[in-house]
Structure formats: structure tokens, C-alpha cells
């Protein structure tokens, strides 16, 4: 029973407690750039989840045999392979989403979430748990960027998933589609997220301090010196 409970908590952990976008503030580049439309957020989230699950699985399998000297290049190659596979599948099966997501599909490779989860989780746990963690984190990421996408689309273009929602209620503010709008919406959503979850674990430092540079993690922030 404990085993199942633990794996269940690992899965849920990615959604709320350690939501990668709102709590650990990982993967900021894609979540700000691609979320001009909710549909993009969904597409990007699905692609990232596929890469996350795949790379977590493979990395947790090979973690024992890869010596520390070539650890980073080896893991990055695994992640890059899955990203390119997604890129090819996207180009073959869903050409129109691929056109919108453009440059951001290859950038999944350097999406901080994937590398951070590889370092923090897959490096230390078995394949089964890593896959669950990948799923949880992927779902959390997709949920977060779809929310951001919807907010920006409704405010900025008056539509949601392409269906006109508020286009005649008020003149859509194009600013929300532009970069500053992205930062603004993200800021308010993170604040809302902090308000909802209790204050206690808000400054939950990323406990492993792997120095991946996630903004939420104070170890990377003060760059090592006191």
C-alpha cells in the first residue's frame, strides 16, 4: 500500500505541490513565448510531456552506468533525441500546429523542466517512479501553460481556442499577445497560485540544489556565495 501511495503522491506532486511553472518557475521560455493561444499551450504541453516521460524513463535506466564526467552531455543527447522525434512526428502528423509552435519545439531540449527533472528526480529514482514523475510534471506544465494561454487569448484576442468569446464585449488589448503581456499574466497567475496554496511551502527551496538555475531555487540564486 505504501508503495502505491508513494507513486500516487509522486504523480500528484507535479500538478499542484511542485507545479513546474507556477511553483518551481521552470520552463519559463516556452510558457511565456508560446502561450499567445490556448491551443498552442495544449500542443506544446503535450509535446513536452512526451519528451519528459521518455527522457525520464531512459535516464533513470542508464543513470548507473553513465560516469559523472560525461553525465551532462549523455543526458542532453537523450533529451535531444526525444525532442527531435517529437519534432518529426509533429511535422508529419500535425503540420498546422507545427507551423505555429515553430522555433519552440526544438527548444524543448533546453526547457529547464526536463533537464531539472532529469537531474533532480530521474537521477535518483527507478524507471517506474521517474515515468510517473514525468507524467505528473508534464501534466502540471500543460495545465499551467494552457491556463496562461487561455487568459492571454481571451484578454488579447477575445477568443478562446478560436471561438470568439468576448470579442464584442470589450476591445481586445493586443498588449497581452505581445511579450510584456506574457510577463504580466505570468506574474499575476503565480501570485494567485501563491495565495491559493498556503504560505508554508511557498518558499520550499528546491531541496537538491542541483544548480540548474531555476529561479525559485535560492541556492542557484545567490550563486554559491553567502
Amino acid at each position, binding site marked *: 500500500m505504501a508503495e502505491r501511495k508513494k507513486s500516487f503522491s509522486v504523480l500528484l506532486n507535479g500538478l499542484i505541490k511542485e507545479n513546474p511553472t507556477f511553483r518551481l518557475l521552470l520552463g519559463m521560455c516556452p510558457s511565456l513565448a508560446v502561450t499567445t493561444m490556448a491551443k498552442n499551450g495544449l500542443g506544446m504541453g503535450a509535446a513536452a510531456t512526451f519528451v519528459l516521460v521518455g527522457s525520464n524513463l531512459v535516464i533513470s535506466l542508464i543513470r548507473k552506468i553513465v560516469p559523472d564526467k560525461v553525465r551532462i552531455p549523455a543526458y542532453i543527447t537523450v533529451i535531444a533525441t526525444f525532442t527531435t522525434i517529437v519534432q518529426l512526428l509533429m511535422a508529419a502528423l500535425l503540420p498546422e500546429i507545427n507551423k505555429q509552435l515553430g522555433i519552440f519545439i*526544438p527548444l524543448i531540449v533546453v526547457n529547464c523542466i526536463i533537464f531539472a527533472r532529469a537531474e533532480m528526480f530521474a537521477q535518483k529514482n527507478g524507471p517506474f517512479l521517474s515515468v510517473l514523475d514525468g507524467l505528473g510534471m508534464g501534466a502540471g506544465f500543460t495545465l499551467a501553460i494552457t491556463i496562461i494561454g487561455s487568459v492571454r487569448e481571451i484578454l488579447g484576442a477575445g477568443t478562446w481556442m478560436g471561438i470568439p468569446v468576448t470579442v464584442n464585449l470589450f476591445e481586445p488589448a493586443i498588449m497581452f499577445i505581445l511579450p510584456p503581456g506574457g510577463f504580466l499574466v505570468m506574474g499575476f497567475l503565480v501570485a494567485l497560485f501563491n495565495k491559493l496554496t498556503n504560505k508554508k511551502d511557498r518558499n520550499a527551496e528546491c531541496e537538491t540544489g542541483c544548480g540548474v538555475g531555476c529561479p525559485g531555487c535560492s541556492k542557484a540564486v545567490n550563486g554559491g556565495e553567502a
Partner: protein
Amino acid sequence: MKELFAILIGAMLVENFVLTKFLGICPFLGVSKKTSTALGMSGAVVFVLVLSQAVTWLANEYLLVPNKLEYLQTITFILVIAALVQFVETVLKKLMPSLYKSLGVYLPLITTNCAVLGSALIFVERDYTFVESVVFGFAAGLGFTLALILFSGVRERLETADIPEAFKGMPITLIAASLVSITFIGFAGLIIS
């Protein structure tokens, strides 16, 4: 020569990597708490960006394009960048320990920095020549530095500001970033022909 200047100004201001193209946000938000750390980080980023542009351009020109392996771009570039960063880190740690102390801590962060791979993919898309892509990398690095230092100044002033409870920490930083990025929108209309 005029063409290079256009790229330099373009990448630094018009298409500023962080504030308009959304590349390299993770370290941008993570390390801009203090101006000293911001300086260290941007120095490392400019250094790696220029080196990685040169190496990735060579890899692309002589390895990928002749054998028609465009789809391998992502994996080759990121492999090159990761190896380059780790190589630079080991060399720096041995030869210049003092520089390593101030700069080296950020080197592992750069492998996962979207700006480095982003700029490599951009020079492929616009098929720049060798010199152009290195200048582009350098300009992107300068743009990153500009944004980072500008923003770390803002953040230091945020420390003493009176912020509502839920907004403390990252939310207020994001809102400040949105205001700074509005200023860079002003450069958008600049056409350097």
C-alpha cells in the same frame, strides 16, 4: 561591414533575446537578484555564446549540410554546447581559478540556457555566414547582458519596496520584467536597412 552593424544593433536592441524573443528567461529571472551575480552570469553567457556560435556553425557547415542531415541539427548543436561548456569549465577551473570563482559557478547553468541553442537555430534559419553568426551571437550576448543588468538594478530597488504578501518573491519580479520589456518594444519599429 554595414550588414554586420545592422545585425549587431538588431540582435541587441530590436530583437533583444530576453525581452522580445523570450529566450534565456530562466537564468534571467534566477540570477538577477544582485548586480554582481548578474555581471558574472552575463560575462559567462557572452563568452559561451560567441564560442558556441563558431563551433555550431562549423559543425553545421561541414558535418550536417553536406550529408543532408538537417534534422540532426538539434542534437548536434546541444551536444556541442554541452561539451563546450563543460570543457570551458574544466579549463577555467585549472588555469584561472579566480575567474572561475566569480564566473564559473554559472557555467553549468548555461547548458540549459535557451538563448544559446536559440541563437544557433536562428543563424541556421537565416543562413548567416561564419562572421555574421559570430557577430549575431556576440550581439545576442550583449542584449542579454543589457537586459540582465538593467533588470538587476530594478530588482535591487524592489528589495526595499513594500509588496503585498502574495506578490513577494517571483510574482513582483515578473511584473517588473513586463514593464522593462515594454521599453524594449519601443525599438521594434527600428528598421536598419
